[in-house]
């Protein structure tokens, strides 16, 4: 669609700009402000330059949290994206069965994040939870509060449980937009199931997959509430992801300067990663098409 040049359109955008500036820019300036100052209490601040940034960038605490965060997001994407595509391809495409499946699979998405944590906290406990008790009955030693590997597995299963449906719904929407004639043509051309997937379904899902990967990356990179409720970042620091670490630092220890510097680095990493994802997937698209 060709758009007309009209600077008066700014007036229509103004409410959004004011609102988002109030809730994003002002706080962000506070953060920047803190990040370059130090205090001895009593609300007296002095300029600290890039000291906090250096401290955060070189601290092993930050490196560890960042490493855990990347590992977590990678595992999440590696499981949820293929699984989501697979589920979407098996979803009934019309009729009451389709509606029913859509409603049921969307349900986890609408559960408050801490309740998700609570559900899995209960579900995984060996004494009162179905999952924990079942595993214990198999004779396996499983305890997500004591064992770091168990904690990781539980958090990953929880996230898969919580968010795979989002990927599936996005892909389903993409699949729904493919006209029936494409499948008929593929049958006439003798295409195998794999060829149909590779050359018809995957290209048509490209746009929604981009959204899915971006959303899942961003949200998994910001994850806080669910692991906080489930493990509190433990055992030890084994499930302390960036957000949990940040909140510990800012609200728990009230280290405003380092926390602010931490925040900015964190935010920039997300922006950078999202930008890379976006560019790479878009250029792949260009190369393909």
């Amino acid at each position: 669609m060709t758009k007309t040049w009209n600077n008066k359109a700014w007036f229509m955008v103004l409410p959004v700009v004011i609102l988002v500036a109030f809730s994003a820019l002002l706080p962000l300036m506070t953060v920047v402000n803190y990040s370059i100052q130090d205090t001895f209490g009593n609300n007296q601040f002095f300029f600290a330059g890039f000291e906090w940034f250096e401290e955060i960038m070189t601290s092993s605490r930050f490196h560890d949290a960042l490493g855990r965060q990347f590992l977590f997001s990678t595992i999440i994407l590696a499981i949820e994206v293929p699984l989501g595509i697979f589920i979407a391809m098996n979803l009934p495409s019309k009729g009451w069965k389709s509606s029913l499946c859509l409603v049921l699979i969307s349900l986890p998405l609408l559960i408050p994040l801490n309740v998700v944590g609570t559900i899995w906290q209960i579900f995984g406990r060996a004494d009162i939870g179905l999952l924990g008790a079942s595993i214990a009955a198999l004779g396996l030693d499983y305890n997500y509060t004591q064992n770091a590997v168990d904690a990781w597995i539980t958090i990953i299963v929880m996230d898969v449980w919580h968010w795979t449906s989002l990927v599936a719904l996005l892909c389903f929407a993409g699949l729904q937009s493919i006209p029936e004639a494409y499948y008929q043509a593929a049958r006439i051309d003798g295409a195998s199931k794999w060829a149909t997937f590779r050359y018809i379904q995957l290209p048509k899902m490209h746009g929604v997959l981009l959204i899915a990967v971006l959303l899942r990356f961003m949200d998994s990179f910001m994850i806080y509430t669910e692991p906080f409720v489930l493990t509190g970042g433990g055992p030890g620091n084994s499930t302390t992801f960036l957000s949990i670490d940040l909140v510990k630092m800012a609200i728990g220890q009230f280290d405003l300067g380092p926390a602010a510097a931490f925040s900015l680095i964190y935010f920039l990493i997300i922006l950078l990663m999202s930008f890379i994802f976006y560019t790479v997937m878009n250029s792949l698209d260009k190369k393909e098409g």
Partner: protein
Amino acid sequence: MKVTKSGMVMFLYILFLMLPIYWLLNMSLKTNNEILNSFSLWPQNLTFENYMTIFTDKSWYSGYINSITYVLMNTVISICVALPAAYAFSRYRFMGDKHLFFWLLTNRMAPPAVFALPFFQLYSSVGLFDTHIAVALAHCLFNVPLAVWILEGFMSGVPKEIDETAYLDGYSFTRFFTRIFMPLIASGIGVVAFFCFMFSWVELLLARTLTSVVAKPIAATMTRTVSAAGMDWGVLAAAGILTIVPGALVIYFVRNYIAKGFALGRV
């Protein structure tokens, strides 16, 4: 009925999704004594005691009212400001439009943890701490950009000729927008309402940071009860089930738009 491979896959997946929720429901209908001392797949002594506790104790049920209040406020605010902005983005080019759009989207990528403390200070300094509107405004941070994005997608699907025809027919802009344009993108507005509701409803970190007593959301009530009063598993489970109900209702109403909606109007 013939069992197909697809049917089997869906059955297993839905079973995987439903089991933990069922387990919560199961627990919410048991007494604490039964939860801790015997293990059963369904309640042996069915009790609604836990639900009664929540419905009669003000500190519990006011949490629900608070949550729903700020969620609805947020939904209304987000849609009202996003509608004209999305229209501007879908119809006009103006100075800095691309940058502005990108800047809006970056806010969707901002980790709430980064904003928790500054928000606390900002809202305290303007006297909005522990009010519903504070949480509603804070959630606008990620809901407004999303609303603009989704609505822009839906609006771009409406041919521009419709605007022009309406102006030729003598419609004023406001009348055209409310009488003709909004009905055309009604499903888009529904989808946005659903998303604003969803993201505001599930968010806890900001909501908990910005409230203490008066506007405390149900989610926060739950975490505090867990840490303070020992483990009242039954009530906790019942409270959890009750937080799922509004979401389930909303999904039921938008079920035919879910798929398109999750694609953010871009399919």
